[in-house]
């Protein structure tokens, strides 16, 4: 399904100029510091600017580290310590004419739906599952059936060593990030007891120092992976432990790598994935060619292998699978009456539902403490518990996941 009508198809760089693309893209670059996603961000920003996108916003919560300089080519040694977003934006603007790049130094989660609503599409080069889930859920949530502009295509790129992937997500229309969460390889974790008793590798010593020793010594202080003093402390403890167990190989940079979960980033993998992401952005923006449907994986370990396939939407996806449906509610009903009506609905097989809204718990079947606390709500009128158009989320042993209803007062 095409979301934008093609305006002219002959020469993309020409169209872009003549169409004067406004507010077209938001590129994130978060996290080069710890996974090479900032590497993606630099590439994406450069590609977008050179492809003719005119108004780009960039969000990144990290500052520049010396170790970034080998592949994050928008940064110089004198930039170390400065916010990535700001430096990248001004560098690209100084080199490419007629492009406006607005940096934001902070987390993507700082911005609300109104902010994301101003863009045509969103490109992500994030480094964490958590951030990806957040932006994905936000964009799915923004889709409003009465407003076609509320559907923002999401292009997600990711790299890990010689491997990478890019995908196009049309929120609520095609498979979303949450739909494919079970494809992620679980993080390999070493049993706690191995760390505590028989470390075998240098990484075990670092993990021991950060997971067990730090909380023991500094009970209430949280370990800050970006604080050199904290990292130094972990390094020293790990080194000491490694010597105790005759393990060699604990270094400061290994310590940093382990606690920040750094996966080696390879400049050319970033370049390949960023190129794919920007191609898709260009195709979606101009309609010059069909865009990726919807998942491309790239494996560069031995030669070059890519595979493109359509990842299917999951019916019971907690984010895009069961979108809220409208449900007519008489404001004078009690909650109990409302639940009874729900049970009568043949299409929802509900027996013992637990109901909540974003701001309050309506009724919990268990555990006993929550059941006792929410039981008085059963007598209350719906108008005193929920607002018109508020969403009620329902879980039930009979439902594989959850059901969402929009309350429409009649």
């Amino acid at each position, binding site marked *: 399904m095409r979301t934008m009508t093609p305006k002219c198809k002959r020469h993309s760089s020409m169209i872009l100029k003549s169409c004067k693309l406004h507010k077209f893209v938001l590129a994130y670059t978060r996290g080069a510091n710890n996974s090479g996603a900032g590497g993606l961000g630099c590439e994406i920003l450069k590609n977008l600017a050179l492809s003719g996108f005119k108004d780009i916003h960039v969000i990144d919560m990290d500052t520049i580290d010396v170790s970034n300089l080998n592949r994050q080519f928008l940064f110089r040694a004198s930039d170390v310590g400065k916010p990535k977003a700001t430096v990248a934006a001004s560098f690209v603007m100084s080199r490419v004419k007629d492009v406006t790049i607005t940096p934001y130094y902070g987390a993507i989660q700082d911005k609300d739906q109104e902010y994301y609503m101003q863009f045509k599409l969103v490109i992500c080069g994030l480094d964490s*599952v958590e951030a990806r889930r*957040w932006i994905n859920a936000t964009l799915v949530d923004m889709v409003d059936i009465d407003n076609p502009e509320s559907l923002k295509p999401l292009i997600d790129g990711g790299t890990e060593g010689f491997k990478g992937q890019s995908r196009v997500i049309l929120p609520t229309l095609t498979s979303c990030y949450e739909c494919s969460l079970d494809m992620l390889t679980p993080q390999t974790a070493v*049993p706690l007891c191995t760390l505590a008793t028989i470390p075998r590798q240098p990484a075990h010593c670092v993990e021991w120092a950060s*997971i067990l020793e730090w909380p023991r010594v500094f009970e209430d202080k949280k370990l800050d992976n970006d604080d050199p003093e904290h990292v130094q402390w972990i390094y020293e403890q790990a080194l000491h432990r490694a010597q105790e167990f005759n393990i060699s190989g604990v270094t400061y940079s290994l310590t940093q790598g382990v606690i920040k979960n750094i996966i080696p980033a390879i400049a050319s993998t970033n370049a390949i994935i960023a190129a794919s992401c920007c191609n898709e952005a260009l195709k979606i923006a101009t309609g010059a060619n069909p865009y990726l449907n919807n998942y491309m994986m790239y494996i560069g370990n031995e030669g070059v292998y890519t595979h493109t396939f359509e990842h299917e939407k999951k019916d019971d996806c907690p984010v895009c699978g069961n979108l809220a449906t409208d449900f007519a509610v008489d404001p004078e009903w009690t909650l109990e009456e409302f639940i009874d009506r729900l049970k009568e609905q043949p299409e929802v097989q509900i027996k013992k539902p637990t109901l*909540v809204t974003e701001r309050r718990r309506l009724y919990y079947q268990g555990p006993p403490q929550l059941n006792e606390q929410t039981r008085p709500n059963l007598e209350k009128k719906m108008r005193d518990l929920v607002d018109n*158009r508020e969403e009620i989320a329902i879980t039930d042993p009979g439902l594989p996941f*959850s059901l969402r209803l929009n309350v429409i007062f009649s």
Partner: protein
Amino acid sequence: MLKIWSMKQQQQAASAAEGGQKKKKVTAAQLRAQKDLSELSLPPTIRMHMPDPEDILNFTLTIEPDEGMYKCGSFNFTFAINSNFPHEPPKVKCTQKIYHPNIDLDGNVCLNILREDWKPVLNLNAVIVGLQFLFLEPNPSDPLNKEAAEDLRLTRENFKRNVKNSMNGGYVKNVQFERVLK
């Protein structure tokens, strides 16, 4: 008349804005925690408590084994579920200083499904059953408290005595433990 009309317009604009604005949604992590919690089937030996009932992502659990070496004890754990649940396991800690091969003196718990074997299909019930199992069958081959594990491996009788002592607030090898008898 004109004034009434403009007031009406204002009111309509206000209600449109209110109705048009979408309310916030419950997050996937919260929903999953809600489902797990409301479908828990706790045996009489386990109680759960929410210090802040508005926050279902943080709660405590009390286990009072009715058999085994830890019978008559009352053990408290904190559960902290983050926004990446169930992709990430809940963080579980014992709040008391106890003598147990799989729980260290700082309350860290070595239970495979809390770390290396966690899968999103597992639920809070599985974690709670796992915790209870640790008190019925302490496991000396995956020790977090090495001394306790060693004691258990060498002589079960001696270990049993140590457990009794420690639960009473006594010393085991110069370490004093918290009194946890109910």
